[in-house]
């Protein structure tokens, strides 16, 4: 790497000049590093005005031959140069800039060259020189003489360090110079000529220079002139702009004035409009159509068209009167006058209306149109749909009246109640009377039938015997059918009553507006189909339709008031209904003063007829109560009271039945089959199940069952004990077996268990000991064994010797045993009644028992008399044969 090359590539572009260059390596690091790759250069930068000396650390670039400057320091920053050892030549040295850099030169000479060049440079360019330590004296001394330096530098280095003005020739200058020299080939030979030539040329150039300076003066003048023109132009523009500005300033003021005026104008316009609107509004509010006025004055209150007109008019009037007018506006003379006029109109109309309605109510109350013709087979409750229909068209007027004059409204309603009450009282008592009659007739045909079959039915006092009689006389169907028929009759009656009541109640809701006007009165028709179901009759449909039409005519008004109230669910409605209960209930109580008493007498009557009816009543009534309870109606309450009575009747009926069971006597002569009250109980359960099926009063029935079953079980035992002819066990067994089949699920288990017990007791008892002596003998044997005698030794005791055994066995030859068994079979057959087919079961049990006995004896003999060869006279096969024979004999 030549010095020139480095100068050319690295430093020349920056106008720097390389002074010294030594290959070095960094000290503390790997000394084996390629020594040539690192160079330390001192460089003179001639470009900057105080000449600066740099020390560069140049490194060979990774790629190619190029080098790059890795670090640069200013010589000025160099504080200490440490040569390490002054005596001993070494290649190491330190340079202290901001910190110490340790270097190793490639040779001692290089180091010395570098240090001396640093010394020289610092002496030459720096005021404050770095400190040179441990450096051989000769290096510093021989350069100390500045004169020596030049010599030295010329001899040793080929760098000539010139004075301050020295400028290195650039390449172009050089070539120019060369060209110049080549042109004047004479120069070298003749310096004088050359100088002359040069000075000539100089003067020529001088002249040209002056010439060009003279030439440029014109141009400068021109330029000046141009500039002056520009300035003038600018001034002109500025003055123009100023004038514009002045104009604009006045415009702005004008604009502001205009804007103010505009806002004032709009405010005035708006106020005008508002005033107009207000006035129009007021007029609209207070303006009553002439048509309405006419209707109010002398509208026809008897035709529906007239009523409709009147209603509209009245509502319009009401709206006018209660129009939302600002209080201050009321002071306007015209308004006052109009209101006065309205009041007059109102007074006259309401008077007319009240009069009309009053007449109407009394008329309807007195009308009693239909004479209550009683058909024997038909319970009728007159429908008052036509009255309702007549009146319901006034409903809106009533609402209007209520709003306008509360007290008059109340008066009117009490007049209504008074007149309609009479009607209902009479009707209901008639209705109840006919229902009672119906009850009697419902019973009659069956009673006759029963009487013809069994004379002792008529005039029966306890319900139990009645059921019994009926049950026995026909099939149990007749009980069901008459009972059910009665039940449905009563149901129909109740439903009719209910329908009338509800119709009336709904009407009252509607007509007297007991619902707050904020509440969805339209809900009424919706609920109606619920309780009635499909049973709604035509008459009701009419009311329904009437209401529908009325409500549609009314709907606009309602929706206006109600808003989203219409959308509310039923549950909330019923809650609301409850709130206004009291009012309705009061009214209904006044309208139907006799209903509860009448119902009461009806129930008592029915109960007197037959306690069994109380079951139907209980079921039906509870259903009705449930249907009505969410209505919160008067009817619901009344029915509730009735239900309590019915429940009492039912309890009484159950008590009577229990009493009857307790008092049952059985005939002593006949073979006892199944005790009669067990059959009765069965019938009762069948009937009750039929009645109560699906009813939620079943819990009551279950309670009654529990009581009854308890008594029945108790009484079975009593009767069985009393019965003389038939063994107790047989009675129990038969009865319980029957109960097991027919009884209710819960009690079946108990019945079954008792039955099993009795079956066992009976078989053991009856079988007794067909081989009695044998049995006694073996019992003795058993006793010995259990007393501790060894089985083999029993035979040696006197009482149980083989001889004794043989004697006993001889008494039971096969024939005898067979005869005994046959006898037993006959006895069983005789004692058991056929009703339950228990013979097979009992006989099976007997067979089993007998065989077990046989086996037991056999076993004992094997154990106690092992080698005696004694056996019973008959084998087990014989026994089985006997059984087969007995079976075949049947």
């Amino acid at each position, binding site marked *: 790497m030549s010095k020139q090359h480095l100068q050319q590539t690295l430093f020349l572009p920056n106008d720097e000049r390389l002074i010294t260059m030594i290959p070095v390596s960094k000290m503390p690091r790997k000394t084996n590093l390629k020594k040539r790759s690192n160079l330390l250069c001192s460089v003179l930068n001639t470009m900057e005005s105080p000449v600066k000396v740099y020390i560069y650390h140049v490194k060979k670039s990774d790629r190619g031959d190029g080098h790059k400057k890795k670090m640069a320091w200013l010589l000025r920053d160099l504080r200490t140069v440490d040569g390490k050892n002054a005596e001993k030549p070494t290649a190491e040295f330190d340079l202290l800039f901001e910190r110490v850099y340790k270097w190793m030169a490639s040779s001692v000479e290089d180091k010395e060259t570098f240090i001396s060049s640093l010394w020289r440079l610092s002496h030459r360019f720096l005021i404050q020189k770095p400190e040179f330590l441990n450096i051989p004296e000769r290096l510093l001394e021989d350069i100390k003489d500045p004169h020596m330096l030049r010599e030295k530098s010329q001899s040793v280095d080929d760098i000539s360090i010139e004075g301050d003005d020295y400028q290195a020739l650039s390449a172009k200058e050089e070539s120019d110079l060369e060209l110049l020299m080549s042109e004047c080939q004479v120069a070298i030979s003749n310096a004088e000529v050359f100088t002359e030539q040069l000075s000539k040329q100089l003067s020529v150039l001088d002249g040209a220079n002056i010439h060009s300076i003279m030439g440029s003066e014109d141009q400068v003048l021109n330029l000046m002139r141009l500039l002056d023109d520009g300035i003038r132009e600018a001034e002109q523009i500025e003055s123009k702009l100023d004038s514009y500005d002045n104009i604009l300033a006045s415009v702005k003021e004008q604009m502001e004035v205009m804007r103010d005026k505009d806002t004032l104008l709009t405010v005035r316009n708006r106020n005008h409009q508002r005033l107009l609107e207000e006035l129009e509004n007021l007029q609209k509010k207070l303006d009553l159509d002439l048509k309405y006025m006419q209707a109010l004055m002398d509208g026809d209150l008897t035709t529906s068209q007239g009523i409709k007109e009147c209603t509209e008019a009245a509502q319009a009037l009401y709206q006018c009167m209660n129009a939302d007018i600002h209080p201050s506006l009321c002071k306007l003379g015209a308004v006052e006058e109009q209101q006065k006029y309205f009041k007059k109109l109102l007074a006259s109309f309401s008077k007319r209306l009240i009069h009309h309605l009053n007449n109407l109510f009394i008329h309807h109350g007195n009308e009693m149109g239909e004479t209550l013709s009683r058909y024997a087979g038909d319970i009728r409750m007159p429908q008052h749909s036509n009255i309702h229909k007549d009146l319901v068209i006034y409903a809106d007027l009533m609402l209007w009246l209520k709003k306008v004059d509360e007290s008059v409204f109340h008066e009117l309603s009490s007049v209504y109640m008074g007149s309609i009450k009479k009607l209902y009282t009479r009707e209901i008592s008639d209705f109840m009377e006919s229902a009672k009659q119906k009850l009697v007739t419902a019973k009659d045909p069956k009673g006759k039938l029963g009487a013809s079959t069994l004379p002792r039915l008529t005039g029966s006092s306890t319900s139990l015997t009645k059921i019994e009689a009926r049950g026995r006389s026909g099939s149990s169907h007749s009980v069901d059918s008459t009972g059910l028929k009665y039940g449905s009759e009563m149901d129909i009656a109740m439903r009719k009553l209910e329908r009338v009541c509800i119709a009336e109640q709904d009407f009252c809701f509607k007509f007297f507006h007991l619902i707050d006007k904020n509440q969805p009165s339209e809900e009424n028709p919706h609920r109606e189909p619920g309780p009635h179901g499909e049973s709604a009759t035509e008459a009701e449909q009419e009311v329904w339709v009437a209401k529908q039409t009325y409500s549609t005519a009314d709907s606009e008004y309602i929706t206006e008031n109600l808003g989203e109230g219409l959308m509310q669910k039923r549950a909330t409605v019923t809650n609301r209904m409850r709130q206004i209960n009291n009012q309705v209930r009061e009214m209904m109580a006044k309208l139907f003063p006799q209903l509860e008493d009448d119902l009461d007498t009806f129930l008592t009557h029915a109960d007197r007829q037959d306690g069994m009816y109380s079951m139907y009543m209980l079921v039906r009534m509870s259903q009705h109560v449930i249907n009505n309870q969410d209505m919160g109606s008067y009817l619901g309450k009344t029915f509730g009271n009735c239900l309590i009575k019915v429940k009492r009747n039912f309890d009484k009926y159950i008590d009577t039945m229990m009493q009857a069971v307790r008092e049952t006597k059985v005939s002593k002569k006949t073979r006892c*089959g199944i005790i009669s009250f067990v059959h009765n109980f069965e019938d009762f359960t069948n009937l009750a199940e039929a009645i109560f099926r699906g009813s939620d009063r079943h819990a009551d029935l279950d309670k009654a069952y529990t009581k009854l079953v308890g008594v029945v079980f108790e009484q079975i035992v009593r009767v069985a004990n009393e019965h003389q002819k038939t063994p107790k066990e047989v009675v129990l067994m038969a009865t319980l077996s029957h109960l097991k089949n027919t009884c209710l699920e819960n009690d079946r288990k108990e019945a079954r268990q008792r039955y099993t017990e009795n079956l066992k007791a009976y078989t053991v008892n009856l079988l007794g000991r067909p081989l009695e002596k044998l049995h006694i003998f073996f019992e003795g044997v058993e006793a010995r064994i259990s007393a501790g005698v060894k089985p083999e030794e029993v035979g040696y005791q006197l009482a149980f010797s083989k001889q004794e055994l043989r004697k006993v066995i001889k008494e039971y030859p096969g024939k005898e045993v067979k005869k005994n068994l046959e006898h037993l079979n006959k006895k069983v057959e005789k004692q058991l009644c056929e009703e339950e087919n228990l013979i097979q079961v009992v006989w099976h049990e007997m067979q089993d028992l007998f065989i077990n006995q046989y086996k037991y004896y056999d076993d004992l003999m094997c154990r106690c008399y092992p080698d005696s060869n004694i056996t019973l006279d008959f084998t087990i096969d014989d026994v089985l*044969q006997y059984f087969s024979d007995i079976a075949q004999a049947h």
Partner: protein
Amino acid sequence: MSKAKAQQPAVIHKVIMVGSGGVGKSALTLQFMYDEFIEDYEPTKADSYRKKVVLDGEEVQIDILDTAGQEDYAAIRDNYFRSGEGFLCVFSIKEQESFQATQDFREQILRVKNDENIPFLLVGNMADLAEQRQVSEDEALKRAQEWKVNYVETSAKTRANVDKVFYDLMREIRSRKMEASRQSNGKQKKKRDTKKMKCVVL
């Protein structure tokens, strides 16, 4: 007792359940009687049940004698076979042995009743446990054909075909009785049946 008798429906059909132990005779009976399925097994000795049913519009009474499957001596059965008017011969489809046993039952019944055409139904119970089946339907059908009887598979647990077997049997019994009464109306020979025949006439 006339009162008591009058109360009962005129016709009683006596059905007897036969079959090996544990095949579900009692389960079928209880399911038919009370609509309940009893999971626990408890061997029956003998039980009689009675129930009013409507058979093709006619109210009749069914008397079911539920017998013991486990019997040490077959002869003990003679007596109640004697009293039966129709038989439900039950086996379990998951137990080959119980199927084989039906052969013995059939023979005994025929011997006791001395009647080839006695109302009889072969019943394969536990049809709900088909995955444990040991007795194929073909096998059972084949036997039923041999005997000229019907074969029905039931499940006392799911109540499948339970009513069917009882009602089918009752119908068979009824038609048999009608046939018998027609014959005996002509010539009253058999003394034993006269009592029952009266009932039918009533």
